[in-house]
C-alpha cells in the first residue's frame, strides 16, 4: 500500500471528562470523522477526514469537542511551507488539478482594511439616524442621457428599466446545485422581506421559487443551463455571466454526480450528465458579440428588464467595463479576486484576478472620464464582509454590492472551504436530503434579514457621522476616504488621499 505522506491539518480534541457518549458528533458528521467503539464504550475519531466545519463542535451538548491546529510540523522553511509541501504531495499522489472552494484565503492586501472613513467634527454637523430620516434606497440601471419633452413641454418618462433596492446590497449568484434548495429558499425569502434581490446563478430556477420573481435576478452563462423564455421573463433582471472572481477565465464543471432530481430538472439536463459551462461563451468573442446577447435578451423580455453583465476583476477591467457600458448593458457587476466559489482550481482561485477595491476605483474613474458613467450602474462583489466594506465601496464609486460568502456565513457556513465535496454538514453546499434539511429556511431567512437590517443601521450611522443623509450622496465621494499604509500608486488608483492629508 502506498504511504500517505500527509498528516492531518487539524485534530479533533475531545475532552473525555465532558464526553457523555451521546454520539451526536457521530450522527452529525457526514465526513464520518467520529466513531463509537462499543467494546470499549469510547468515542474515537479520524482527524484525516475532518474538514474543520465545526458542526460537531457546535452541536456537542457538553462542549466536549474542539478543533485545534495540528502541532505536527515539517522542518521550518519560509520558501516551502507545510501547505505547499502537502499540495505537492497531493498532486504527486493523484495526478489531479487541485480543487478548492470559497474565496482566495491567501495573504494578499485587503485594501478595504487600509481605507478609513471620515466623520464630521464641529464644522459640519453629523446626523443621528435615530432622529432623522436617512435614505439607503438605490436604483440600479442605465440613467436617461437627456431630458425629453412632449409638445407641451411636459417631461417624458424616458427612464430605462431600474431595479429598486431598499439598501445597496444584493445576494450574488449561487446556483441551485452548488447550494441547496433550503439555502435558495432562505435567500429568496430574505430578499423579499428586505426589498432586495438574489441571483439564481447558472442553475435555472426551481418552479417553487418563481413566486419570488420580483426579487430574483436570473443568470445566463456560457452553458445556458435552464434558460428558456419563461425563465428569462420570471425575474426582475437578467445577468450575463462572463466571469467570476474566484476563477477568471475558466468555465465551470458541475460533476454528473451532483446532477440529481431537482437539480437536473432546473438545469434541464439529464441526471448524471456533467454540467459543463465552457470558459468563454462561444458566441461572444467581442463587445459587438456581447451587445448581440444583451439585445437578444432585451428582445426576449420586451426591454422591460435591466441586463447585468458580470465580469471578474482582471488587469484591464476598466477598459473592458467601458466596452460593456457601450454594449447596451444596464448594470456592470465586477467580482474581485477574493470572491467565493463552490469549486475552483486552487491555482486559479489564488493567483488570478485583482482586488475589487482597485478594480472598482479604476472602473468608476474610467467611466467618469469617458462621460459614460450614467450609462450603467456598478455592482461590486468579491469579499464584502461588513457594512464598513459597503460604505467604502460606495464611496469608491459602487452603486451597490453583491454578497454571497457573508450570506452563507449567516446561514451557518463555517468557511471550511469544502463545498466541492458536496457533504456540507450545515445543509448549504450539498444536495444530500438528510443534510439539506439541517438548514431550516424559516430560521435561515430570518438570520439573513437580521444581518442586513443590522448592516443597514450601521450604514446609516456611518453616513450620519459623515453628515450625509442619502447613500446617493456618498456614491463616488472619495473625499470621505483616507488611506493608511498605502503607497503613492495605490492611492492614485484608489483616487484617495493618505490619512493626514
Amino acid at each position, binding site marked *: 500500500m502506498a504511504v500517505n505522506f500527509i498528516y492531518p491539518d487539524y485534530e479533533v480534541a475531545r475532552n473525555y471528562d465532558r464526553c457523555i457518549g451521546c454520539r451526536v458528533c457521530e450522527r452529525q458528521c457526514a465526513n464520518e470523522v467520529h466513531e463509537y467503539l462499543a467494546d470499549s464504550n469510547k468515542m474515537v475519531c479520524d482527524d484525516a477526514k475532518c474538514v474543520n466545519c465545526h458542526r460537531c463542535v457546535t452541536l456537542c451538548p457538553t462542549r466536549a469537542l474542539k478543533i485545534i491546529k495540528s502541532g505536527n510540523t515539517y522542518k521550518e522553511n519560509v520558501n516551502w511551507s507545510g501547505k505547499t509541501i502537502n499540495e505537492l504531495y497531493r498532486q504527486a499522489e493523484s495526478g489531479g488539478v487541485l480543487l478548492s472552494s470559497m474565496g482566495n484565503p491567501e495573504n494578499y492586501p485587503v485594501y478595504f482594511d487600509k481605507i478609513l472613513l471620515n466623520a464630521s467634527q464641529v464644522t459640519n454637523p453629523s446626523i443621528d439616524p435615530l432622529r432623522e430620516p436617512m435614505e439607503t434606497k438605490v436604483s440600479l440601471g442605465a440613467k436617461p442621457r437627456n431630458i425629453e419633452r412632449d409638445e407641451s413641454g411636459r417631461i417624458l418618462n424616458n427612464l430605462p428599466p431600474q431595479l429598486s433596492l431598499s439598501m445597496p446590497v444584493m445576494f450574488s449568484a449561487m446556483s441551485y446545485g452548488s447550494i441547496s434548495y433550503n439555502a435558495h429558499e432562505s435567500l429568496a425569502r430574505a430578499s423579499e422581506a428586505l426589498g432586495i434581490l438574489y441571483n439564481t446563478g447558472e442553475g435555472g430556477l426551481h418552479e417553487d421559487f418563481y413566486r419570488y420573481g420580483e426579487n430574483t435576478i436570473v443568470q445566463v452563462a456560457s452553458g445556458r443551463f435552464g434558460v428558456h423564455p419563461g425563465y428569462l421573463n420570471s425575474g426582475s433582471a437578467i445577468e450575463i455571466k462572463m466571469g467570476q472572481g474566484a476563477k477568471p477565465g475558466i468555465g465551470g464543471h458541475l460533476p454528473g454526480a451532483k446532477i440529481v432530481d431537482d437539480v437536473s430538472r432546473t438545469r434541464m439536463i439529464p441526471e448524471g450528465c456533467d454540467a459543463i459551462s*465552457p470558459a468563454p461563451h462561444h*458566441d461572444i468573442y467581442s463587445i459587438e458579440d456581447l451587445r448581440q446577447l444583451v439585445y437578444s435578451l432585451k428582445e426576449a423580455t420586451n426591454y422591460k428588464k435591466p441586463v447585468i453583465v458580470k465580469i471578474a476583476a482582471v488587469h484591464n477591467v476598466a477598459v473592458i467595463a467601458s466596452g460593456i457600458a457601450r454594449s447596451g448593458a444596464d448594470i456592470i457587476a465586477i467580482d474581485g479576486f477574493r470572491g467565493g466559489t463552490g469549486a475552483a482550481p486552487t491555482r486559479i482561485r489564488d493567483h488570478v484576478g485583482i482586488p475589487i477595491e482597485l478594480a472598482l476605483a479604476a472602473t468608476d474613474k474610467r467611466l467618469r472620464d469617458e462621460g459614460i458613467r450614467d450609462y450603467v450602474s456598478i455592482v461590486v462583489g468579491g469579499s464584502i464582509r461588513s457594512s464598513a466594506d459597503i460604505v467604502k465601496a460606495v464611496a469608491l464609486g459602487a452603486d451597490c454590492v453583491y454578497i454571497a460568502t457573508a450570506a452563507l456565513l449567516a446561514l451557518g457556513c463555517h468557511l471550511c472551504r469544502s463545498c466541492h465535496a458536496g457533504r456540507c454538514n450545515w445543509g448549504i453546499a450539498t444536495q444530500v436530503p438528510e443534510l439539506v434539511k439541517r438548514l431550516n429556511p424559516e430560521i435561515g431567512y430570518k438570520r439573513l434579514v437580521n444581518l442586513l437590517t443590522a448592516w443597514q443601521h450601521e450604514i446609516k450611522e456611518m453616513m450620519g457621522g459623515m453628515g450625509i443623509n442619502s447613500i446617493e450622496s456618498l456614491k463616488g465621494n472619495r473625499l470621505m476616504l483616507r488611506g493608511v499604509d498605502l503607497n503613492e500608486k495605490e492611492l492614485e488608483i484608489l483616487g484617495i488621499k493618505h490619512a493626514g492629508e
Partner: protein
Amino acid sequence: MNISARNLDFKELNEQIKAVGEDVCINNCYGQRFIGTGLKGRTLTINGTPGNALGAYLDGAVIEVNGSVQDAVGDTMNNGKIIIHGNAGDALGYAMRGGGIFIRGDAGYRTGIHMKEYKDKKPAIIIGGKVGSFLGEYLAGGLIVVLGIGSEDVPVGNFTGTGMHGGRIFIRTDKEPTGLPSQVTAGLASDEDLREITPYIHEFADYFSMDAELLTKDRFYVLKPNGKNPYKQLYTAN
C-alpha cells in the same frame, strides 16, 4: 399578414411582429437582427436576409427563410423549427435544447456548440452542405447531421466534437473523419444509428424537395462521446 422590412430598424420590425398575433410574412428583409426572439406558436416566413440572432430562445414557432441567414441563428432555442433555403453563418444553434434547424446549404464555424437534450426535448440540426470547424463542441445532447451534398471531401472542418459528452454527430461521407479529439469515437453508422436520423432526413428532403431515399442510402459516420463525465479524473480535492 405581410410586413415590409424595408427601411425598418430591428426594433421597429420586431415590435410589429410581436404586435401581430398571427402568422407573418416579412418581405425585403435586410439584416434586421433578433427576429422571432422567444416566439411561440406561429409561423414567420422571411423573404430576404435576416440579421444575426434569428429565432433566439425560439419557443415553438416556425421560421422559414427564403434566403440565407447570418450568425447565431437559434441561440438557446427551446422548441420550434427554423428552415433555411440557403446558407447559415457562424454559431448556429448555440446551446439549443429543443426543436429543429434545417439548412439547405452550408453552415459556418461553431455549429451546434453545447446543444443539450432533456426528457422529450431533443434538438436536431440538419445541414445539407458542409460546415466549418468546431462543429458540436461540448455537445451534451441532441443530433447534428451533416449531409455534405455536393462535397467530395469530409464535409466538416477541424476540431469537431471537442469536449463532447452527449448526443450524436452524423456525417454523410465515404471517408472516415480524422483528427478527432480524444473525447470522441467515430465509426460507421449502424442501421440502428441510422434509424434515429431517418425521420429528420425525410423532413429535410420534404422542406427542400429532395429525394430522401437517395440521401439515406449513402454511407454515414457517427461520432459519439466516450463518456458523459469528461472531467471526472481531472481534479483532486485540496
